C-alpha cells in the first residue's frame, strides 16, 4: 500500500476525448440504425472504427510505457484493481439477466397460471394459461389460439428433451469451455516458469478452443432457428435463452479476441515476462469469468431448463 513516490501520471492525452467521440458516434449511429434512419449504418461504422482505432493506440501506449519502465509496482496494482472491479461490474450485468430468469420462472409465470395471488389474473386476463417450463404455450396462445401475436417455440433446448448426454451439444460446449479454462491456466504456469514455447502452445490451444466454442454456439443457434422453431421472439423462453446465451457468447468473443491478441503479442513480439505479464493475466481472469458464467448458464438454462 505504501506509495513509492514515483507514480507515473501522463502529462496530457488525446486518447480519452477521441475515445468518447468514437463511443458516442457508435451508439448514436446504432440508435439511428435501429430507428430506421439512413445515416445510422454509416455513423455506426465510422464510430466503431474510430473507437477500435483509439483503443488500439491506447493499449499500445500503455504497453510501450510499461516496456520503457515507467510503470511502478504501485501503478501495476492500480491496473489489477481496475480489471478486478471491471469484472465485478460484468458479474452484476449478468446478475440482472439471471435474476430476470429466476423471477419469470418462479414468480411471474406461476402467477399468470393462477397460483397464489394470481388467481384473478388468470381468470380474467389469461384464462386457460398453464404454467410450464420451458414455456411452449404462451399466455397469448392460451387465450387467442391461432391469432396469437407472441407464439412459443416448437421445441426447446432443455436437457429434459435431449436423448442422451453424449449427443447433447451443450454438454460438449461445456467440455470445450471448461477445458479452455484449464489450458489457459497451464499457459499461465508455463509463463511463470519462463517456458515460452509451452506458454505459446497452451495459449494458442485456448484461443482455438474459444473459436471452437463460438462455432458450436453458432451451429446451435442456426439449428434452433431452422429446426427447432426457437427464436428470439418465441415468448419468454426464447427471450431468456437467447439473451443469456447471446450475451455470454458476446463476452466469449471479446475474451477470445483478448487472448488472441495476447497470443500474437507473445509469438510476434516476445512480450510478457515471468514477473511482468498483466495483459495476459487480466485476459485470463476475464476468460475464467466467462467460464463461470457458462457454468451458471449450463445449470440454469440447459440442465434445469
Amino acid at each position, binding site marked *: 500500500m505504501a506509495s513509492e513516490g514515483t507514480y507515473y501520471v501522463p502529462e496530457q492525452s488525446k486518447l480519452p476525448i477521441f475515445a468518447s467521440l468514437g463511443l458516442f458516434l457508435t451508439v448514436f449511429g446504432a440508435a439511428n440504425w435501429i430507428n430506421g434512419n439512413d445515416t445510422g449504418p454509416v455513423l455506426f461504422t465510422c464510430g466503431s472504427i474510430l473507437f477500435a482505432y483509439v483503443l488500439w493506440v491506447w493499449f499500445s501506449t500503455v504497453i510501450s510505457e510499461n516496456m520503457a519502465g515507467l510503470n511502478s509496482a504501485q501503478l501495476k496494482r492500480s491496473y489489477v484493481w481496475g480489471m478486478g472491479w471491471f469484472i465485478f461490474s460484468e458479474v452484476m450485468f449478468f446478475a440482472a439477466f439471471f435474476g430476470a430468469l429466476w423471477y419469470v420462472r418462479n*414468480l411471474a409465470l406461476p402467477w399468470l397460471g393462477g397460483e397464489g395471488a394470481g388467481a384473478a389474473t388468470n381468470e380474467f386476463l389469461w384464462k386457460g394459461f398453464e404454467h410450464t417450463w420451458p414455456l411452449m404455450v404462451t399466455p397469448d396462445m392460451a387465450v387467442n389460439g391461432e391469432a396469437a401475436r407472441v407464439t412459443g417455440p416448437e421445441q426447446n433446448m432443455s436437457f429434459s428433451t435431449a436423448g442422451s448426454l453424449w449427443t447433447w451439444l451443450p454438454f460438449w460446449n461445456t467440455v470445450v469451455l471448461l477445458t479452455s479454462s484449464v489450458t489457459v491456466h497451464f499457459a499461465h504456469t508455463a509463463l511463470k516458469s519462463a517456458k515460452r514455447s509451452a506458454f505459446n502452445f497452451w495459449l494458442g490451444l485456448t484461443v482455438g478452443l474459444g473459436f471452437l466454442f463460438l462455432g458450436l454456439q453458432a451451429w446451435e443457434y442456426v439449428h434452433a432457428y431452422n429446426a427447432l422453431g426457437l427464436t428470439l421472439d418465441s415468448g419468454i423462453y426464447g427471450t431468456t435463452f437467447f439473451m443469456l446465451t447471446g450475451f455470454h457468447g458476446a463476452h466469449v468473443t471479446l475474451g477470445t479476441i483478448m487472448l488472441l491478441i495476447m497470443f500474437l503479442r507473445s509469438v510476434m513480439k516476445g512480450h510478457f515476462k515471468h514477473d511482468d505479464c498483466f495483459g495476459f493475466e487480466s485476459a485470463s481472469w476475464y476468460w475464467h469469468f466467462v467460464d463461470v458464467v457458462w457454468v451458471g448458464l449450463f445449470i440454469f438454462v440447459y440442465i434445469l431448463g
Partner: protein
Amino acid sequence: MAHGPATGLSRWLFTTNHKDIGTLYLWFSFAMFMLGGVFALVVRAELFEPGLQIVDPEFFNQMTTMHGLIMVFGAVMPAFVGLANWMVPMMIGAPDMALPRMNNWSFWILPFAFAMLVSTLFMEGGGPNFGWTFYAPLSTTYAPPSVTFFIFAIHIMGASSIMGAINIIATILNMRAPGMTLMKMPLFVWTWLITAYLLIAVMPVLAGVVTMMLMDIHFGTSFFDAAGGGDPVLFQHIFWFFGHPEVYIMILPAFGIVSAIIPTFARKPLFGYASMVYATASIAFLSFIVWAHHMFTVGMPLAGELFFMYATMLIAVPTGVKVFNWVTTMFKGAMTFETPMLFSIAFVILFTIGGFSGLMLAIAPADFQYHDTYFVVAHFHYVLVPGAIFSITAAVYYWLPKWCGNMYNETMGKTHFWMAFVGLNLTFFPMHFVGLAGMPRRIPDYALQFADFNMIASCGAFLFGAAQVMFLFNVIATIRGGKKATAEVWENPEGLEWTVASPAPYHTFSVPPTVK
C-alpha cells in the same frame, strides 16, 4: 510532473490532472443543474394555478421526465464525482487519481451522452415522457421513437459512472500515503469508497434493464410483455434494484461532506468516527434489500410487503446514528455560522425531515394511501435538495478558497443560503399537505382545493432558482478575485488538503506525505 497546466482549450480536452477533471465535472454538473432547474420551473409555472396554461400535457410529461433524469444523472452524480476528483487525492496524500487517462474519459463521455439525451426533445414524437423511472410498458409499448436514443444515452452514462467508480476505488485502495490507514481516512473518502462500490454493483443492472427495453421494443423479446410470459412488474424489480442503491449513491458522499464541515465550524473533532464508517457500510448493505418498498401497491405477496417494510425501517437505525453523531459533534462546540456551516446545519435538519417522511412511506399499509401522490414528491425532494444539493453547495463554499485561492463573499453566500432555504421549504413543504390530501404526482392540472398550496410551491421554486443564479455569480466573482485565502482557510480544520497552499498547486503530493 513538475509542469503546470497546458494553455488554451487543450488543457481541458486532453488533461489528465485530477484537479482539472474535477473542475470540468463541477462546471458540467452546474450547467446540468441549471438546465434541469429550468425544466422544473416549466413544471412549476404550469402548476402555478389549476387548468392548462403554458404547456400541453404531452410536453409537461417530457419536462417532469427530463427534470428527473438530468438532475439525477447530470447534476448530482457528476457533482459528487467532481468533488471526489478534487478532494480524494489531496485527502489521502496521493499525487493524482490512480488511472488519470481513464479519468478524463469518464468525464468526456458525459457531454456527449447528455447532448444525445437532450436532443430527444427536438425529435419527432418528443423526448422521453414516461417519468424518470421509465416503467414498462410506458417506456416500451407506448414510448416515443426517441426512446432508443434515451437507452443508448443511459448506456454510455453508465459506462462513464463505472469507470469513474473503478478509478476512485483504485485510488483509495492503492494510493494512500504511508500511515494513512483505512480508519484514518476522512469520512468523505470512506463514503466515496462505499459509494463507488454501490455504483459498480448497480450501474450494470441499469444497463441490463435498458437493454431488455431495447430488445422488447425493437427485437421482439417478451421481458415485460405478459402475452409472451414476461411481466411488466419485472421491470420495476430490476429498475429499483438499481434505483434504491442509486439514491444512496446520491446521499452517502453528502454524509462525508457534512462530516468534514461540521467539526470545523463546531471546533470539535467529529463525534463517533468509527460508528460513522460502520453506519455508512450498513446503509450500503441495506440498500440492496429494500428496493420493493417503491412498489408496495404493485401487487406483491404479503410476505414480500412485510419483508421490504421491515428492512426499510431498519435503515433508520444507521441513519439515526449519523444524525446523532452530527448533533453531538455540535453539542457544546464553539460554533460559528459561515456559509458552509449554514448549509450543513440545514442539511442535518431538513434531511432528517425527509428521513421521517421516508419512514411514513415505509409503512406498507399507509403507503397505499401515499403512493404516487405529492407526498412522495415532497419526501424525495426533502432528501435530495437539502441532502444532495445543499451538501454539494456547502462543499463548494468550504473548499472553493482551497481551489482558487480567494475567499468568497460571505454576505452573498449567506444571502444565497437564506434564499435557498426559504425557497426550498416554500416549494416542498406544502407538497406534503397536497399529497396527503390526495393530489397525484406527474399531472399538469389538478383539482381546485390544491390551488393555494401549489401557488406557494411555485413561488418558492422561482425563489430557489434565483438563489442559484446568485450562487453562480458568487463563484465566478471568487474565481476572478477577492480576499486571498490562507493555506488553512478556516480555523484549524482537519485534513491533508489544508497542509498545501491555497490555491492548491497543480500537482500536490508528488512525494507522499507521512501520516502519523
